[in-house]
């Protein structure tokens, strides 16, 4: 118990360290903007006074980091009076800054949209798992048969067809031709079906391949021979022994894929005009060059992903005692 607690607190410390690094990177990303953000936002015709006001309002007139360097003055120490510290102070107080365009708090804008994206990602994941596990087991236990080839082909098709090809085709068939669902938007509960299937298609295909490979690999292990020699039914061998071990890489992939889903949701949200975080990042953030909003969106998606990774690791350790012991 003590050992586990120690492990958990170590994991927590590492997670915090990773979050610190990511926040730092995201904070400093704004320094990559070629030229001056104020000119980009206000346009070339902005007066010097307008630019100065804008910079002051958003703290952009202060130094970027603890030290700065330019060819004329060399290294200069700025102390704690810098934007990096400002961002951290704001973050600790639950403030992601103010939008450059709307002047609304970025956190509020994100919280309005994030539930839609999370719901979309979760529904996609459920659809993907429900398809992948039975299909993967079926293919793995019937290796090199017609069933395996058919299942593998469907999975490969899912991987090969990108979201932005599947999406428009689904819209064409189910919204334009047969009018079963709306082409875009998120007004009705059933409107989630097309975006979720679009977003989950690739994941279900990847998972099917993983489950198939795992089942095939595990079926070659000694313990399977032992289980069969004990007289266990093939069903029990597969579902009680093989699948438990075979699911370890699948759990890892699922955890890793959550971030991919959240990022992938950007495309799906664009296709279906789904009012989530992705569309906020794309249209309001990048489209309008609202860098503060882009920072906030990237940060929130990344932190969600880190937490998902930590959880993946904990589940991974739980499932495979060999890793826990080592």
């Amino acid at each position: 118990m003590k050992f586990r607690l120690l492990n958990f607190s170590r994991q927590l410390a590492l997670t915090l360290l990773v979050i610190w690094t990511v926040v730092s990177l995201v904070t400093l990303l704004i320094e990559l903007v070629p030229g001056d953000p104020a000119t980009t936002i206000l346009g070339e015709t902005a007066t010097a006074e307008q630019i100065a006001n804008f910079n002051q309002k958003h703290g952009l007139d202060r130094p970027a980091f603890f030290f700065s360097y330019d060819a004329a003055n060399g290294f200069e120490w700025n102390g704690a009076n810098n934007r990096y510290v400002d961002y951290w102070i704001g973050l600790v107080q639950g403030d992601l800054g103010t939008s450059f365009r709307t002047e609304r708090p970025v956190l509020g804008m994100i919280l309005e949209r994030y539930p839609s994206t999370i719901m979309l990602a979760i529904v996609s994941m459920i659809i993907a798992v429900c398809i992948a596990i039975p299909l993967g087991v079926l293919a793995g236990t019937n290796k090199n048969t017609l069933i395996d080839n058919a299942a593998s082909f469907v999975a490969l098709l899912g991987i090969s067809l990108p979201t932005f090809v599947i999406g428009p085709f689904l819209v064409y068939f189910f919204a334009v031709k047969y009018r079963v669902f709306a082409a875009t938007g998120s007004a009705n509960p059933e409107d989630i079906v097309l975006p979720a299937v679009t977003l989950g298609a690739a994941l279900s295909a990847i998972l099917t391949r993983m489950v198939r490979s795992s089942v095939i690999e595990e079926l070659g292990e000694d313990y399977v021979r032992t289980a069969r020699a004990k007289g266990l039914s093939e069903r029990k061998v597969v579902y009680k022994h093989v699948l438990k071990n075979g699911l370890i890489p699948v759990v890892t992939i699922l955890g890793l894929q959550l971030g991919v889903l959240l990022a992938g949701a950007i495309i799906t949200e664009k296709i279906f005009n789904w009012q989530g975080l992705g569309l906020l990042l794309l249209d309001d953030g990048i489209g309008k060059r609202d860098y503060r909003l882009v920072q906030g969106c990237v940060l929130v998606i990344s932190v969600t992903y880190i937490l998902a990774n930590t959880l993946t690791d904990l589940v991974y350790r739980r499932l495979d005692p060999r890793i826990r012991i080592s």
Partner: protein
Amino acid sequence: MNRLTYLGIAVALLFIIVALFAPLIATHEVTAQNLAMRYAAPSAEHWFGTDSLGRDVFSRVIFGARISLQVGITVVVVSTIIGTILGAIAGFYGGFVDKFLSGYVFNVFLAFPGLLLAIALVAFLGAGLGKLILALCIIGWVGYARVIRGQVLKVREYDFVQAARALGASNRRILFTHILPNAIQPLIVQASLGMAGAVLSEASLSFLGLGIPPPAPSWGTMIEEARGLDILYNAPHVLFFPGFAIALTVLAFNFIGDGLREYLDPKQRKR
């Protein structure tokens, strides 16, 4: 190797040849517009029809292969090399090295999904082929490193590794001669998916208008231009051909990965 693997190799080779010799294969100038011939159906003159500006879709798909393969191959090669080295070091040496690499460095890089970092970089830095490849490499290697680390952790406990150690083999010999050859099968699957992923990422960014700027004939840009409902209804070929090209390229690399995986694993070959 099975027939599908050979099919994959054939298609991949075809794409590489098409990409290399695109100017010789294309029937029209990629950027040449002909507004009188907008959305023309496939014909003897325009094999894949024409798009919204009357440009020849066949020639644009051919040149699109060049962009996709350039991005894909660069990203996979660089990512695999970096990922294998760092993953093997983390898994083999364990202890502090592993804690630093897998616990800290890997997690930091995994914290950014590739597409999101690419989007973020493009948002702050501006679009361009070089920046796109850089972003995908920066993020791509960590997937390979994680897979290799997991495999090395497993393989290093096997009896034959202990036997090699008992016989006095050096760490380098154990890692490169005994562990890595037994740890790379999942890496091949990862590399094949990685190739597909890189091609898709490039197309995705171009689809979002954040990749290679028009009029460059990226497959993603072509699909974005074709997804309007009326276009989809009246001229689906504009969406179909670039979509088919992406699917075919990705399928080919998946077939190769699958085939090589089975070929390299004697345990699976026997059964």
